[in-house]
């Protein structure tokens, strides 16, 4: 696979995952409960993991 294609795919996947995490937070907020709060915190952790994965190659 070409480098440019790989980079474009990676950016696409990261954008999708980030959007999914934000959507998950918004959707799970509608129902009150520890389980839903847990999922929201997981989504928050997912966003931070995404940031860490983007940042890893610069460390």
């Amino acid at each position: 696979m070409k480098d440019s294609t790989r980079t474009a795919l990676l950016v696409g996947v990261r954008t999708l995952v980030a959007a999914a995490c934000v959507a998950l937070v918004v959707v799970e907020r509608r129902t009150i409960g520890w389980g839903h709060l847990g999922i929201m915190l997981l989504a928050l952790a997912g966003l931070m993991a995404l940031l860490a994965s983007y940042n890893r190659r610069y460390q």
Partner: protein
Amino acid sequence: MLACLLPALVLFAVFMVYPTVNVFRMSLYTWSGFSPDMKFVGLDNFRHLVDDDQFVRAFQNTVTLLVVVTVVTMGMGLFLAAIMTRQKLRSRNFLRFVLYIPNVLSVVVIAAVFSAIYDQNNGLLNSMLRLVSLDSWQQVWLGDQKVVLYSVGIAMVWQSLGYYMVLYMSSMSSIPEELYEASGLDGASASRQFFSLTMPLIWQNLRTSLTFFIMSAVNLSFVLVRAMTGGGPDSSSEVLLSYMYKQAYTNSSYGYGMAIGVVIFAFSFLVSLLMSRATKREPLQF
């Protein structure tokens, strides 16, 4: 040396260390906040938190505001800063001035402005929607449980956006133009320049502001919620700090309020720490 540091250390101990330790200590007691009767109850306050639906709702609202407002503010701040720095807009200084104004205003003034904008009958937002024949989109922006939190979130974004935009603009302005010229000659597009050149070179600034914003968002949400909705309707816009305030000072459950304070402290500290770790990298020299 120690004598020079002593006044600062004393002030730090009296106004920072002692109150923080006291929050942890008080979370182990039941106390009304006024009476001399204080009873040690161990971890009972924390056990009650587990069964408290209002606390869970406030926690969920806090996480929602933290995620949504941070993503929108940082994303828009970076985007606007890049546009205003790289594109030579004629009205750049005016736009920067307009976007920075909310940061100078008091949060209570901002709450009053947005309460007027969101007014159900004569508010700017509903009037505009009526004007463009989008009557069905009209909402009771601060009275509908589904939208009230996002209405507060928009006010938070409006308040913070200008500050972070100016912060990023100052970092971007210090990047030498030759780097952009060289990358342009190599065929880099504007987006490529942004992600491969601008972002790495302003990363330290971005990192610091992100960590700082997480902590300030928790505090800012409290002030706006208190001033705009008071946590309502039916606690649907309650955030952790406003719930803590309500328990400690309105409900006279000071110990329980402090238990919520401990959770807020632990949560803010953990998120800031993880964010700091996730964004850590060697600073680039240019």
